[in-house]
């Protein structure tokens, strides 16, 4: 074997990401449409998004049930017929519900755009909320809920949101078993009427849409009534609960789920790109400090990660892991040790270079292909931001200094302010 051949190849700097600009148009009634042409296949990702997430609901399950009932029957077709048509055209629909937004995403072959737009119009704007379908859906969801409540990771995550955002705020409110009996079609119709409106919506199309796409959109959506101002009341800012340390006992659990974190700034804040980098170092990739320590060195867990993400009214950061019950205390301690290190010791140059390069590669992946492009576009657009946000992030990845990282850690990772939720055996 010739050892010369085994020398490490030189690493070229990862090139700057080039992000195609979305083409922004407005339908005659003002509905914003964003077209992102990309990819090699004749497919489309079609998203209709509304400010109709949990943040808009007065009590639990309304936003999600309204969203899930969209395909359960319309004024013109029964649920079975709608689903059969979607399946017939080889389309995949995903009902999407988040804290702030809700809507549908459909993946389709470009040649079926006309039929799918027609059907989308019906699904989104003429749902019938039939009683018997609603009853079946709620029964089903109750069974799913009961199964999910067995999982320590769900128990811990739900409690984490409650602790961080407050039990009565829609970001923090937990679903309870008896909530399922409280839903009736009238509540859903009202929620739909107020939130699934043309003034509340945007259409994002990526992939290879046909040349007449704008005409098709006008045809199917231009007659929706224009903006009607109904004076949306202000939703209060979320406020965390006082108790910052909660354990939920689950007898017999083999693993303990751990969630540690707090509310934080969101994407609109100038420090956010730096915080993303800090979070990556801590637990945002396979080579992160938490992964190296808790998994690769100590073998306490199959995986540990940290995340910082944005909502409209706030943001949050969380460290998540499931560890063997006997190691849960040690794992919690190691998590705090890693946070301490970030606050008190500057990150070394070689580690920082690694993170810079990894994240630069990650930015290429975030804009590779029509699906990724649309998701990244939306993730900035919904905060009133554009591609400048990503260019700022890319610039920060190249230039952030070790001192800046320590300062961010001291500013945003104050251990006394973090919430600690665990679920498992005592």
């Amino acid at each position, binding site marked *: *074997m*010739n050892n010369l*051949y*085994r020398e*490490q*190849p030189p*690493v*070229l700097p*990862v*090139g700057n990401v080039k992000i195609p600009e979305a083409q922004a148009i407005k339908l005659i009634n003002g509905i914003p449409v964003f077209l992102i042409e*990309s990819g*090699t*296949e004749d*497919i489309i990702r079609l998203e209709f998004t509304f400010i109709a997430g949990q943040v808009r609901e007065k009590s639990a399950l309304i936003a999600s049930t309204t969203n899930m009932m969209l395909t359960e029957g319309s004024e013109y077709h029964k649920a*079975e017929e709608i*689903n*059969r048509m*979607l*399946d*017939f*055209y*080889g*389309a*995949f629909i995903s009902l999407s519900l988040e804290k702030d937004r809700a809507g549908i995403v459909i993946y*389709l*072959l470009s040649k079926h755009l006309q039929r799918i737009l027609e059907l989308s119009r019906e699904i989104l704007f003429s749902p019938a909320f039939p009683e018997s*379908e609603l009853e*079946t859906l709620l*029964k*089903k969801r109750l*069974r*799913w809920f*009961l*199964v999910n*409540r067995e*999982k320590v990771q769900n128990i811990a995550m739900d409690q984490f949101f409650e602790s961080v955002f407050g039990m009565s705020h829609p970001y923090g409110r937990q679903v309870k078993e008896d909530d399922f009996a409280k839903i009736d079609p009238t509540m859903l119709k009202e929620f739909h009427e107020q939130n699934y409106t043309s003034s509340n919506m945007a259409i994002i199309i990526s992939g290879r849409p046909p040349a007449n796409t704008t005409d098709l959109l006008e045809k199917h959506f231009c007659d929706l009534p224009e903006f009607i101002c109904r004076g949306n009341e202000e939703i209060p800012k979320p406020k965390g609960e006082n108790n910052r340390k909660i354990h939920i006992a689950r007898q017999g659990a*083999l*693993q303990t789920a751990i969630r540690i974190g707090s509310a934080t700034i969101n994407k609109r804040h100038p420090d956010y790109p730096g915080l993303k980098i800090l979070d990556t170092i801590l637990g945002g*990739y*396979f*080579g992160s400090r938490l992964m190296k320590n808790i998994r690769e*060195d*100590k*073998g*306490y*867990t*199959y*995986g540990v990660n940290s995340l910082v993400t944005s909502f409209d009214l706030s943001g949050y950061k969380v460290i998540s892991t*499931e560890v*063997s019950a006997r190691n849960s205390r040690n794992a919690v301690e190691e998590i705090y040790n890693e946070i301490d290190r970030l606050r008190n010791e500057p990150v070394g140059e070689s580690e920082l*270079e*690694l993170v810079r*390069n*990894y994240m630069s*590669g990650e930015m*290429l*992946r975030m804009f*590779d*292909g*029509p699906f990724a492009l649309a998701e990244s576009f939306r993730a900035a657009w919904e905060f009133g931001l554009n591609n400048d946000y990503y260019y700022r992030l890319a610039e920060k990845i190249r230039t952030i200094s070790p001192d800046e990282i320590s300062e961010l850690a001291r500013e945003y990772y104050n251990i006394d302010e973090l919430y600690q939720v665990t679920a498992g055996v005592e």
Partner: protein
Amino acid sequence: MIRFSKFTLENGLRILVHEDRSTPLIALNILYNVGSKDEDPKMTGFAHLFEHLMFGGSVNIPDYDTPLQMAGGENNAFTNNDITNYYLTLPAGNIETGLWLESDRMLGLDFSQKNLDTQKNVVIEEYNQRYLNQPYGDAILNLRPLAYSIHPYRWPTIGMDISHIERARLEKVREFFFSHYAPNNAILSMAGNISGKEAYELVKKWFGHIEKREIRKRELPAEPVQKEERKLILDKDLPADAIYKAWHTVSRMDSDFHTLDLITDLLAGGESGRLNTKLVRELKMFSEINAFITSDVDPGLLIIQGKLMKDVNFADAEEALAEITGNLANENGLTDEMEKVKNKFESSAVFSNTSILNKAYSLCSYELIGDAELINHEVEKYRSVDAGMVSKAALQYLTVTNCSSLYYKSTRNN
């Protein structure tokens, strides 16, 4: 249509390259023809544990992940009954870093006792997290040994028992490496911003000098034909009853494979599948029900699994289910429905081609079962299935005596 070029090195390594200039990245996939079916029944879970150890350092490189991340790359791997598959994506300019890393660990591993000990713990936590600490997570651990009596598909990839992982020893790991990891037992593919010729030259540079190895001959016992129905009822502290039914079917290479796969789509493809329409929506007996075929290299299973609604008993639920599967045997005028599931296969195939990682993996996977070119003929195969083939296959495979049923009976009163 996925265009690709194919090469074979002198040491037996097969190379498949798909050029896609629309991306700045390259996906690199390496499939090793070794899975949990190649394990000693007393040391199950080994192929998967081994996959973890492949990241613990190789002859010239102490740590796999760091140099890859330094080059802007990301990677992962999975193991199943048939194969162990490693994949990564990199900015095109840094593809050699990926080839350097992958060729070095094909050349030889060099991990420590400490590494082995840690990864054993990690795998045990994976076992807990995925199977034991999830409601219904252990169903597959009970269903496999019910359906298979002697074939190694009777144990799951994670292993038959945690103690097998705990007992793994360093010298056994070395032995496993040299009898399964070799250029002549692997298929490499690349998809992305690179031409076939460039890719071939680079693979030859990094892998060309790795010598052929003697691969342990695969002698798997054939599963005998099942002659009578098998049932296993387990009491479980769970929120709802559940049923799992498995029928022996065929290998992925068999001519009946596409018909059987299409049957599972008639039953459970999309929201409008028959099981969902009848048993969930109309009769409200199940809260969820699904059907799928295991796409195994050796004869696999067709599995239907569902969770029962409150106050529905097993007998009624099974009778309703049996009526639907029974009807498949006298299929005739189902033109629209057949068209629907075939359209779905077609669109799934197109969607999967939007990802360079999917394309790279599919090329290796089809090459393993005979020929990478099959990637371009799957849709026609589904298109050629007709109602007669559906009823024939249903009659032949979905019989009572060919079925193993597992029942999870909830011990709770809710």
